[in-house]
């Protein structure tokens, strides 16, 4: 991109409307910010209710550090492979893009399996979300993140089907950009979740 085109693209009013790539990326950033605001409300609920165990089990009794460590490793690795898919797209390599996306999807799915196992185990021990406000906040916050990962997998699958059919056209490239932003944001939220819920919660 030439220097003149870059100035035009910043959208500060001198060069007219910004390029479509910038407009789409910017709009998606705004969506991600709104999503983070939504998570912050669930984090706030967690902060208020974390000690309201109603005589039931607390985080120290329930959380399994090894499982959470594995979940974290899977998700961080999936972020890495997701980054690789962006590089492969830039290099116009269909095979590597698909492989990197496949790896991202499998790692994400493995994360979801571990999370589902954790949830099922808690419910089986009588520590479901109905047990106490603490567990309600836990299931909602962690589950909301899990739902986002699941929605991401659906999106990812759709794109993996689309790229070989349609090739690397501009709309798809922009969608890939957005998907990358989305996936990394889920990672950032997981880091917050890991710290605030599991690390601080296990100590409480």
């Amino acid at each position: 991109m030439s220097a003149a085109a870059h100035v035009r693209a910043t959208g500060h009013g001198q060069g007219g409307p910004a390029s479509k790539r910038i407009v789409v990326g910017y709009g998606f950033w705004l969506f991600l910010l709104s999503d983070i605001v939504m998570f912050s409300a669930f984090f706030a609920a967690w902060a208020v209710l974390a000690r309201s165990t109603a005589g039931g089990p607390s985080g120290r009794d329930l959380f399994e550090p090894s499982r959470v460590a594995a979940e974290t490793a899977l998700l961080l690795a999936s972020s890495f492979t997701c980054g690789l898919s962006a590089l492969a797209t830039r290099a116009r390599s269909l095979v590597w893009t698909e492989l990197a996306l496949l790896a991202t999807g499998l790692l994400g799915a493995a994360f979801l399996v571990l999370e589902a196992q954790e949830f099922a185990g808690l419910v089986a021990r009588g520590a479901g979300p109905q047990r106490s406000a603490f567990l309600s906040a836990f299931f909602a916050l962690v589950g909301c993140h899990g739902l986002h990962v699941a929605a991401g997998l659906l999106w990812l699958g759709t794109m993996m089907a689309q790229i070989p059919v349609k090739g690397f056209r501009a709309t798809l490239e922009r969608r890939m950009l957005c998907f990358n932003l989305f996936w990394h944001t889920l990672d950032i939220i997981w880091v917050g979740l890991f710290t605030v819920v599991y690390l601080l919660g296990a100590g409480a």
Partner: protein
Amino acid sequence: MLGKLTWEAVPWNQPIPLIAAALVLAATLGALAFVTATGRWTYLWREWITSVDHKRIGVMYVLLGLAMLLRGFIDAVMMRSQQALAVGHSAGYLPPEHYDQIFSAHGTIMILFGAMPLVVGLMNFVVPLQLGVRDVAFPTFNSTGFWLTAAGALLVNVSLVVGEFARTGWLPYPPLSETAYSPGVGVDYYLWAVQIAGLGSLINGINLTTTILKVRAPGMGYLRMPMFCWTALASSLLIIAAFPVLTATLAMLGLDRYAGFHFFTNEAGGNQMMFVNLVWAWGHPEVYILVLPAFGIFSEIFSTFSGKPLFGYRSMVAATLFICVVSFMVWLHHFFTMGGGGDVNAAFGIATSIIAVGTGVKVYNWIFTMYGGEVRFETPMLWALGFVFTFVIGGMTGVLLAVPPADFLLHNSLFLVAHFHNVIVGGVVFGVFAGIEYWFPKAFGFRLHERLGKAAFWLAFTGFWVTFTPLYALGLMGMTRRLQHVDVPEWRPWLYVSAAGVVILAAGALVQAVQLVVSIRRREALRDVTGDPWNGRSLEWSTPSPPPAFNFAVLPQVQGLDAHWRAKQAHLAQPADKPRYEPIATPRNTATGVVVGVFATLMGFAVIWHIWWLLAAGFVGAYATFVVFAWRDRDEDEIPAREVARIDRARLAGLRARETRA
């Protein structure tokens, strides 16, 4: 098969909702029959329902808002008449369980399905024109946002006849809204209607913010944007920051109701005050989401009808952004009686008083804009003047309520009801009517009838004060809000006066309807051929009325504030040399938005009535729509240069005719 839905869901034994539903149904069927008889389905489908043109979507938002405003007003008529009748020994005509639904529906509808679509519709229509561009950032997304809002509105109206609406007030405070105390579907209707429409609002906020920050005409720097664009930006930023909190809060209440969670319950450690805090963390910014664009409309009108640039433009920008930020720091004044303690209440009381400073700056700016100008008292200007008078008094009663000791006495009384109607009717509703009157010629190519417009204003203005002044007095006497029956006979005269005020307001609404009909019938006489009927200042007035699909044949080069005024002064509206027309790519119409709206309605209805298969089917349908949309190969149409030239030459001919006359 049908979950909780049975024939008993229809209130066969209650005549009022049945008659209302029959009327709505008859009106809908009548409209459908009219469209079929005149063979306009193709036109409607191609030009409106599947349209991704921001102007068309804006108009549809406004129509939806006006219809819902009427519905909410009918609720208001019932409430005021019930309170006037049910004093002492009389029981009135509305049983408590029905009355409770009416005041809940009134608030929900007026704020979320009346005021929001009206404000959003005007922003959608005007902002791209003022920025000098051809469309919003995400046209298809824009259409989806509208249809999601319409889906939410539809669900609220379905509750009139299938099942019931919430009896919990417009914000469903737990524990009353929990399953233990509200086992019916009323709260569920509220939850899903608001969730779906809230998603539409979020889409709109993202779309407009991106448009204003990234899609502007060449030369349109931030400090050259018309004031309305600034307020639309502030409002959209607030939507992005506040609506997700509402989504999360209502999701928590939904989990409590559907899955036995304990966020807000009395038992197992739930915390009821957390709901109140979270919901007002959205609810207070929501007030400014509505009123900031109204401030923008008034800024445009004061400046245009005084023939002067807006006084203190930069201070107006600063005040807008100040209000935008501080609106997040005052939420606790909605519940000083929570028991947060003196320090907490003092902090929020002071913050609340400080936010009035930003509004004060604006009021002085508007007054100084008129000072020394050639003020024209046309209909939009009357609404603007009525607004300043009404809003300042509403603001002052608000500052009174911001003092915690006073609030302890006045909270939950009719004084509070009078206060927030004073600012919301005086601010938002007057603003929207001013805006409709002001931009109507731009949208449809002819003006609204002037004398009928003025009559409507005077009726609304008088009716407002006759309705709400008695409520201030009643509040000071100790009458609490939401009373289905009034025990104190001494209050009766005040309630009668207030009911009489509603009659005046109804006359105002009628005159507005008549104004619309008369204006349509006399449209040839009221035709605006210049595109600039008010001698306007910003770029929307440089386009023909109504503007072509692409708005601007050649993107304007903006040299400063009040771009169109500047061009007129310098006689630059006529291009010196022949413009070079190029083909214009416009986004293709798509049914994606309306189809998503249909599936959202089905999903909402399914989840309200626990019809799980329908929920799954709706989800699959929505996902399939998304895939079909993602798969399409052509997303733009091209308007050939010859066609652009033909349309623009007609505009230039109009301008020439105007300049010769001048």
